[in-house]
């Protein structure tokens, strides 16, 4: 720029420009002051919104909305920003018209118009909301075909909630189409991969309801039932299901239920045999948990020999945290106890060589 950088001078010029009513300068100043002087920052943000800066109008509207301020002000600010092409404002406005709120009943035409504008701006949330709107047909006209297209587009872009909505639609059967459990299952699994806990919980519920049409190997179903176990109200059924699979020798079920019980206040005694079974079977995180629990005495007594054995086995299998913990425990043990623990680890690996290798679940 031909001039040396000078933050103080820059701030002075910015303030002068802001005072002269330049909206961009007012908004920039509000952003810079947000951390150090929130009150002044808020004042400049309001000024910037009045000067017609869309980002500022959007931010102020959000603020008024969250404080339950006048809905007319919120709509006016969103509309002004949206008309200037501010995509988040278009999405917010469309969504507001779609759901309606105190003082503003739903308005299908406006909802559709603004969400479409946001969709043109490649907004995935708008895509998802518009898809749901066409699917339910409560506010805008019902258009399942278009709904599925929109949700599919969002889903293909990695939007987990759209994938979940598609799965629900397939499971229930959308207008005209028959329920399709095979497709639904595929879509639920994809939603889980995209990070949807809701999809995992739904799959867990389907498994617990004993839906035979699922034909899912129990190994795959364990994380879904675990999601159910961690959700409210389903604990007993999920626990029973996992316990039954664990008894059948399904290693992920032993590991997952063991880890969950270990974290519960009064279930440690039940956790130990499950973790032991998983650890014996080569499940490295369970080996580490078992070793760690023996160092702290969670099972009633501190047992350095058992702790060293399992931490040593986990460390040799590549568990990063186990190495340091094993070395700490080693320093607290007598040579005879170390020898006993090392003999046990050696026996484990000599036995393991005779067994087929097991795939490791990632954690």
């Amino acid at each position: 720029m031909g001039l040396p950088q000078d933050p103080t001078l820059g701030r002075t010029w910015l303030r002068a420009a802001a005072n002269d009513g330049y909206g961009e300068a007012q908004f920039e100043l509000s952003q810079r002051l947000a951390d150090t002087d929130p009150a002044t920052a808020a004042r400049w943000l309001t000024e910037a919104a009045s000067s017609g800066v869309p980002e500022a109008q959007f931010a102020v509207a959000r603020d008024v909305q969250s404080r339950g301020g006048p809905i007319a002000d919120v709509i006016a600010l969103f509309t002004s920003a949206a008309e200037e092409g501010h995509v988040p404002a278009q999405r917010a406005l469309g969504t507001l018209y779609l759901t309606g709120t105190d003082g503003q009943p739903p308005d299908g035409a406006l909802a559709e118009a603004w969400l479409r504008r946001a969709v043109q701006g490649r907004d995935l949330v708008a895509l998802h909301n518009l898809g749901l709107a066409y699917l339910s047909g409560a506010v805008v006209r019902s258009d399942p075909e278009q709904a599925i297209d929109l949700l599919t587009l969002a889903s293909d872009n990695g939007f987990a909630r759209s994938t979940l909505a598609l799965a629900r639609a397939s499971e229930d059967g959308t207008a005209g189409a028959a329920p399709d459990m095979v497709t639904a299952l595929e879509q639920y699994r994809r939603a889980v991969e995209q990070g949807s806990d809701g999809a995992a919980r739904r799959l867990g519920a389907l498994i617990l309801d004993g839906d035979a049409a699922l034909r899912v190997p129990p190994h795959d179903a364990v994380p879904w039932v675990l999601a159910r176990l961690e959700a409210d109200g389903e604990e007993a059924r999920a626990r029973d299901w996992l316990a039954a699979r664990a008894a059948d020798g399904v290693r992920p079920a032993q590991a997952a239920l063991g880890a969950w019980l270990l974290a519960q206040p009064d279930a440690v005694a039940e956790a130990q045999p499950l973790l032991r079974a998983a650890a014996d079977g080569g499940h490295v995180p369970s080996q580490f948990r078992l070793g760690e629990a023996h160092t702290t005495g969670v099972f009633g007594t501190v047992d350095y020999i058992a702790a060293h054995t399992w931490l040593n086995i986990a460390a040799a299998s590549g568990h990063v945290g186990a190495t340091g913990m094993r070395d700490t425990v080693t320093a607290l043990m007598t040579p005879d106890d170390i020898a006993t623990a090392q003999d046990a680890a050696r026996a484990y690996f000599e036995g393991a060589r005779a067994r087929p290798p097991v795939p490791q679940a990632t954690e």
Partner: protein
Amino acid sequence: MRLRRLIWATVLVATGALAQDDAASRFEAGMRLHSGDGVLQDFAAAADHMRAAAEQGHAPAQNMLGRYHFEGLGVPQDRAEALRWLEAAAASGTPRHLFDLARVLEEDDATLPRAAQLYAQAAGAGLADASVFLGVLFQEGRGVPQDFTRARAIYETPAAQGHPRALSNLGLLDVRAEGVAQDYARAATLFTAAAEQGLPEAMTNLGVLYENGFGVPLDEARATALYRAAGQGDRPAGPPAYVYDPRLMALPPETDRAALAQAAQAGDPVAQFQWAWLVLSDDPAAPDDLTRAAALLQRTAAQGHGPSMLNLGLLYMRGIGVPQDYVLGHQWLLLARARDVTGADAALEATTPPLTAAQINAAQRRASEYTP
């Protein structure tokens, strides 16, 4: 080994002179096996030689056999058998043999007075260690009446020769004002002399003096440094290092690792060793790489490659890429030393202390069963 024993049995000729020669050569053979000098260290095989020589009255062999039985190294641990041989060796009057017998007798209150007597005899013959142990008995009143003045007088001679334990124990008498007026300054001088020779207890004691400013200027930083040094023991050389094979060309810094890994994968043993060596030189190395490096060294060591044996042994001792296993670690280090790998001696010296006698026996047995 079995064959050699048979040969020995056939050459046992019943003439006195030959028997003496035989005892001496059996003892020498035993000592080579004991120290692992050019052969695989094997206490069990050494004990066989020692027993043969001991039964012919060879005192040093009797002493070694007694010590083996006391520790349970190479032979079953057996206190009665240990004492029988240690007594036989002590009958020769050799100061070190008197001392070794006293060390065992000192453990039992009933034989404590005799231990004191043996220490005195060995000390009188000039063995400094015996003086120190005798001094401790007088200081603590074990097996002899407690007598600080006497303890002090006993420590003086070895202390004057610079014996670290004698120096340190004298310093403690000064600190505790036992048999002498309390003298922190003198204690500090004594502890310093002992600490300079690497005695951990002296470092700790000197640290206490610096922490409290007793007899020395108060210096907390120095105290902390002394405590840390004491905790690490005397390992001036640092932990033993992984070794490269001096017969191979040095790897240039711009070595293509991917190409080396590929050659290792294809089964080239040189590439396997070199790739593993590069990983062991990484700081920090990736855990997956260490597991793979250990697996490659398993192969090259099993094929008889000495430097691989040393590196694999250290990995087992440290539990890196393999389970921490002192038996397997010691086994590979012994095999490396038997192949004259440079650094194997130092590695064994540094890593053996935490092993139990049973672990040492198991490692030696595994090493003796190894075939490339």
